[in-house]
């Protein structure tokens, strides 16, 4: 038997450099892509909504928008970010906590910073795949993006941090099944109040105010602004995204239970 023979005099040590982080990131991405429900959530639903409502022009559009896809594409990109960073992360982490995976990893040299880092990198990797596919589909549907796409990237990153904070807030405090339900429920609420498939301007003014203060509304405002002619993001959207990016992870860190 070769196993478990630590050679006399040699002290077992953690792997050096970024090897554990790379391995864990690759594992997180593989698991996300392997889970049918997460592929449904992160790819099938956004692509389906984009294609359906671009071809079947039944939803209200803001004034001045000719083709439905021109409004839908930025909104669906916002939806994709939310589904990966909040729902996907929250549900997966909730079950990892329940299954004792997080507890088990604590006694390995991976360490919490690397585990958290791997989750963030995996989310960004999945988002890159989503963006590539959604942009390709939207262009195929006749989307002509304008403005300054460079502004969309920091907005998406800020929103990712805020959504991830919300996902981890649920995952660290609730039972996995409750997290599953809560994350999906919140997804629906934020989708409807997010200006993602129909403009916030078609909501009653009271609800519109609330919607603009939510991270989903702020992200879709930001992406609509950045990717339309003119290419400017309202200052209010930056403020809302930044506040959520600070508060949600802080709340998660304060309440997260690892076991």
């Amino acid at each position, binding site marked *: 038997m070769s196993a478990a023979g630590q050679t006399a005099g040699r002290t077992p040590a953690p*792997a050096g450099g970024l090897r554990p982080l790379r391995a864990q990131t690759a*594992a997180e991405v593989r698991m996300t892509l392997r889970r049918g429900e997460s592929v449904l959530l992160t790819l099938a639903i956004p692509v389906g909504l984009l294609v359906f409502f671009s071809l079947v022009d039944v939803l209200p559009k803001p004034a001045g928008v000719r083709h439905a896809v021109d409004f839908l594409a930025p909104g669906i990109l916002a939806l994709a970010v939310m589904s990966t960073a909040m729902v996907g992360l929250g549900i997966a982490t909730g079950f990892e906590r329940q299954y004792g995976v997080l507890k088990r990893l604590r006694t390995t040299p991976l360490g919490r910073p690397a585990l958290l880092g791997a989750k963030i990198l995996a989310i960004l990797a999945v988002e890159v795949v989503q963006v590539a596919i959604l942009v390709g589909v939207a262009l195929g549907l006749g989307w002509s993006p304008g403005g300054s796409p460079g502004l969309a990237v920091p907005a998406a990153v800020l929103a990712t941090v805020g959504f991830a904070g919300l996902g981890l807030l649920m995952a660290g405090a609730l039972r996995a099944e409750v997290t599953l339900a809560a994350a999906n429920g919140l997804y629906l609420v934020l989708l409807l109040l997010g200006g993602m498939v129909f403009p916030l301007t078609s909501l009653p003014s009271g609800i519109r105010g609330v919607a603009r203060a939510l991270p989903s509304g702020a992200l879709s405002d930001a992406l609509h602004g950045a990717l339309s002619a003119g290419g400017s993001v309202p200052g209010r959207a930056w403020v809302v995204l930044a506040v959520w990016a600070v508060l949600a992870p802080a709340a998660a860190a304060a309440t997260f239970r690892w076991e």
Partner: protein
Amino acid sequence: MAEIEVQDLVVRYGSTVAVDGVSLEAHAGAVLALLGPNGAGKTSTVETVEGYRSVSAGSVSVLGLDPVRDHRALSARIGVMLQRGGIYPTMPAGEAVRLFARFYADPEDPAALLAQVGLAGVAGTPWRRLSGGEQQRLSLALALVGRPEVVFLDEPTAGVDPEGRLAIRAVIAGLRDRGVCVVLTTHELDEAERLADRIVIVDRGRVVAEGSPAELMTGLGGDHIRFGAPPGIDVVALAAAVGAPAREERPGEYLLDVAPTPRAVAAVTAWLAERDLPLADLRAGRERLEDVFLRLTATDPGAAADPMVPGDSRVPGASRVAGDSRVAGDSRRVGRRRA
């Protein structure tokens, strides 16, 4: 120096005292079994040594380090097998071992390790599709992949089929031979008796006995004869007849403090025969570890009659099950019955 030193450990959760002054040592090249009923404080003790919990009082050192403060430095030098779970359900067995191997500078070869625990054939099977025994063996492999100096195994053979048990026992014996310090928690007496070099019996947060299996079975309680007969027989008359102190430990269970010589045994059986009393069970000399355990951890005379049953750790309150079901097939015990 011992690899693990625990001194007067106290662990409290709020007002509940889970561990109440436990001291123990574990050494390289030896298997220490922590034995005790549910809620005895085994898991709290081990999780404190693993660095999961902070001490409320007392001290814990592992390889000369503090498990909480030096957790990072220790993490590569210890291997932990949790009682259940701890692995991504959708991750294939081989991938799990390869992933964990990447956390260490000088890991085992994942393929060789999988073969050693008998999982080479299911390397591509996700954790959730493995049998209970296969899951346990994968968990064991993950605990060993970093070539740890100290290994913690929580109920390693719970729910494992006989073949899997043999494989796990062989791995544990191999660890000991290579100088690894192994700490095993179990409430399977048989497991402790087979595997452990030293056994620490814990009950209600305290160490109630400690020693090698042989020491525990012979040293504790001294020489005596135990037998079962109808409750309420006249122990004073019996003591006089045998010439040794006698008492009814619990209804129908008698104990005589006398060396189990043929003469003493004959005196007992003769006395019972004169009164036409049936003899249910007679044991002389070495106690079974189970008897030691039951005597030491008995909460009350009634509870003491219920041996621990393996594999029930997940069902609170179900760990004490009445009757002799556990020992029915035990040839050593059966062989000692002379009724």
